[in-house]
């Protein structure tokens, strides 16, 4: 084995390929240092050491392989041949191209790196901007056109996934009450589809809207609400999501972001997993705009029905004022529904108007999970028939 010059890295500072002209005949790997004489008829290639002519290429056959943007030294070759002529000296290449117009590409100056970076960097930014605009506009336009059956199917699948292993509250009168108000609000907005509200037992204090006008409420939200107007406020907010087709728009956008990131990073799996986090972040940011729209629409719908509309703001205030020990329960609400001061200000309304639910409706809703929820310390007596059931196995 050859001895390795370990410590001796005799790096001559400017590493360069010597400025020579090389000829390869395409048959063997023999490399010849050559001189080239060009006429308008042919290219005469002769050995640099003894002037023996090694090749004579007719000008009409000549091509340049590659270009000066990518190839350090584009090679000259007769069409269809494996032979190559490589001229390292740019000045010599320029002279050759002057004599032989067919070799014009040989003399093109290397495009400046800075210029290219500026050009294609801004092109990239513009293309991403256009793509993003297309997704934004496209999801806006397309979402309402997605067949409702399809949306509902998707929504049901997501709901079943989300509530899997949790108890559904099936108190009939309570469900009727909340569904009644939900559809009243939907009608007030001119929404053409039926809205379905499901109640899941337990926490977090949250509610969400799925594609196909399917709403899911957690019973903790109903339990911890000070009064019926707060539940009505959250419900109206969710109806705001539904009538604006936010869920399907959100999905469309997320898909768009995925496609964009995939085309930008295509080929790196690790980046793929990393960007799925980035995509989520973007979807969340997107969510903020949706939230504001849903807030505004929710309050508007309540006022349209002549119902007390102070519930949204008062609910956010209550969430914000909660002590940190309840932070865990709020986490779910925080992530997609940040109760910012700005949102409270925007949804602040006087406590006038008729109540959203009748006394009987509100009582039924409070016990939708089969317990008298007015007094949290009371436990169910064995006489009470259990009205909570597990979701049916799929």
């Amino acid at each position, binding site marked *: *084995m*050859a001895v*390795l*010059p370990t410590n001796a*890295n005799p790096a001559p500072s400017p*590493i*360069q*390929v*010597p400025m*020579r002209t*090389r000829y*390869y*005949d395409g*048959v*063997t*790997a*023999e490399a010849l240092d050559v001189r080239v004489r060009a006429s308008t008829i042919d290219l005469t290639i002769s050995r640099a050491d003894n002037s023996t002519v090694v090749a004579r290429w007719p000008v009409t056959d000549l091509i340049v*392989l*590659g270009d000066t*943007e*990518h*190839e*350090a*030294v584009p090679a000259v070759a007769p069409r269809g041949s*494996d*032979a*190559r002529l*490589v001229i390292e000296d740019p000045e010599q290449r320029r002279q050759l191209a002057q004599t032989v117009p067919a070799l014009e590409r040989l003399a093109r100056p290397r*495009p400046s*790196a*800075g*210029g*290219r*970076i500026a*050009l*294609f960097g801004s*092109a*990239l930014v513009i*293309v*991403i901007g256009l*793509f993003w605009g297309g997704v934004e506009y496209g999801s806006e336009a397309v979402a309402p056109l997605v067949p409702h059956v399809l949306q509902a199917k998707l929504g049901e699948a997501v709901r079943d996934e989300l509530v899997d292993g949790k108890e559904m509250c099936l108190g009939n009168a309570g469900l009727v009450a909340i569904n009644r108000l939900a559809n009243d609000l939907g009608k007030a907005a001119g929404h053409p589809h039926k809205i379905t509200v499901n109640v899941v037992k337990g*926490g977090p204090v949250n509610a969400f809207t799925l594609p196909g006008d399917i709403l899911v409420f957690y019973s903790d939200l109903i339990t911890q609400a000070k009064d019926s107007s707060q539940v009505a406020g959250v419900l109206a907010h969710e109806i705001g999501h539904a009538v604006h087709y936010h869920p399907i728009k959100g999905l469309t956008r997320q898909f768009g972001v995925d*496609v*964009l*990131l995939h*085309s*930008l*990073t*295509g*080929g*790196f*799996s*690790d*980046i793929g997993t*990393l960007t799925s986090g*980035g995509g989520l972040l973007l979807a969340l940011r997107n969510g903020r705009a949706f939230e504001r729209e849903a807030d505004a629409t929710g309050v508007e719908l309540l006022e349209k029905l002549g119902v007390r509309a102070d519930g949204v703001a008062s609910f956010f205030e209550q969430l914000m004022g909660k002590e940190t020990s309840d*932070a*865990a*329960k709020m*986490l779910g609400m925080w992530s997609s529904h940040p109760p910012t001061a700005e949102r409270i200000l925007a949804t602040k309304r006087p406590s006038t108007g008729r109540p959203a639910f009748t006394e009987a409706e509100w009582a039924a809703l409070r016990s939708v999970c089969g317990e008298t929820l007015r007094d949290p310390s009371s436990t169910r007596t064995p006489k009470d028939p259990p009205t909570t059931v597990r979701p049916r196995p799929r």
Partner: protein
Amino acid sequence: MLHCSNERPWAPRGCVTDVSAAPAPDLTPSRPVYDGSLGELYGIYLRHLALMVLTLGWSRFWGRTRLRRYLWSHLSILGDRFEYRGRGRELLFGFLFVLVLLALWFGLIWALWYFRLREHPVPGLSVTNMFSVSLALLGLPLAFVGQYAGLRYKLTRTRWRGIRAGLDGSAWGYGMRATFLTFINAMTGQLMLPLVSVGLARPRIANARVGTLHFDFAGRAGDIYGRYIGYYFLNILMWVVAIAVVAVAIGGTFSDLDTKSEEFTKLFSEPSLRTLVLAAAIGFAAYLLFGLLILPVRCWWQAYLFRYLVSRTRAGNVLFASAISTWQMWGFLVLNYLIVVLTLGLGWPLVMHRTLRLVAQELWIYGAPNGASIQQPADHGPGYGEGLLDMFDVTGF
């Protein structure tokens, strides 16, 4: 004079007569030269990215080809530049070919389901399930097949002094061999790694050629087993240390919190912001610890393995060697990875640039081939390429 030595891998095994009468072979050292510029590379890459977004990724075949043309052409050995003559459409055809194969495979699975299982469905076994499970099982062998076939494609599109390179041998044979070795290695707790490394390096090196000049590979797993066993137990020791440190740190944190066990379970069943922050901090610390203790050991082994594999490679009378250090290997494996991931892929040209500079700095070539004896090969290689690689292996470019 009789010579009995194991130190010369290129001598025939056992004792041979020393032919000291013959003239000393030419062993003039040289290194590859890379004269690309990072700025120019970025110009090409940004153009590629803009086109990727515009075409939703379909321009990747042509973009990849342009990048390779740049990199190949700026790398030279013995004063002669490489040339990349692949075409974007060859990569497109390769991709479409594998797409068609997958469609046929899905059709087959669907037919199986339709005619056999539809009447008597097995719970949890839908058509899509069967398809994705079969792909997951086939994915690893196919990725290996794709790696070998991809190497063949790249080599047959590579020219040096006008002569095409190439790779003989069967990609499917390599895929089966690689799958088997990987499986055995996993079954034996990684103790077979030298066997795997040498066993997979051999076909890739010994089947490679430039024109009619074949590479030879004289590596044996036995040569590196001693060092590997040392690495193996050092690695385990580092894991034990790392886990112990993490355990002590976690124990300390929670005794500080003075948490009762029910509160402890509550902490995890209903995560608060504090729990999340705590978990993130612990995760980060563990990651850092892992990076400090375990990665250097792994880089030390990888650098050693690379030096070994290079030194046992020969092309005719040309010998190779590398003095790559653990630190350089760290830059190659860890730093490059971090650059790509933390820049969301925008650092990719920098990584490529760094890699080629490393090759130019740390690969030594002794002697020069007799060019006149190397013939242009008759075959032109496959007409399309890298479909499997595109589909199953995501580490390439």
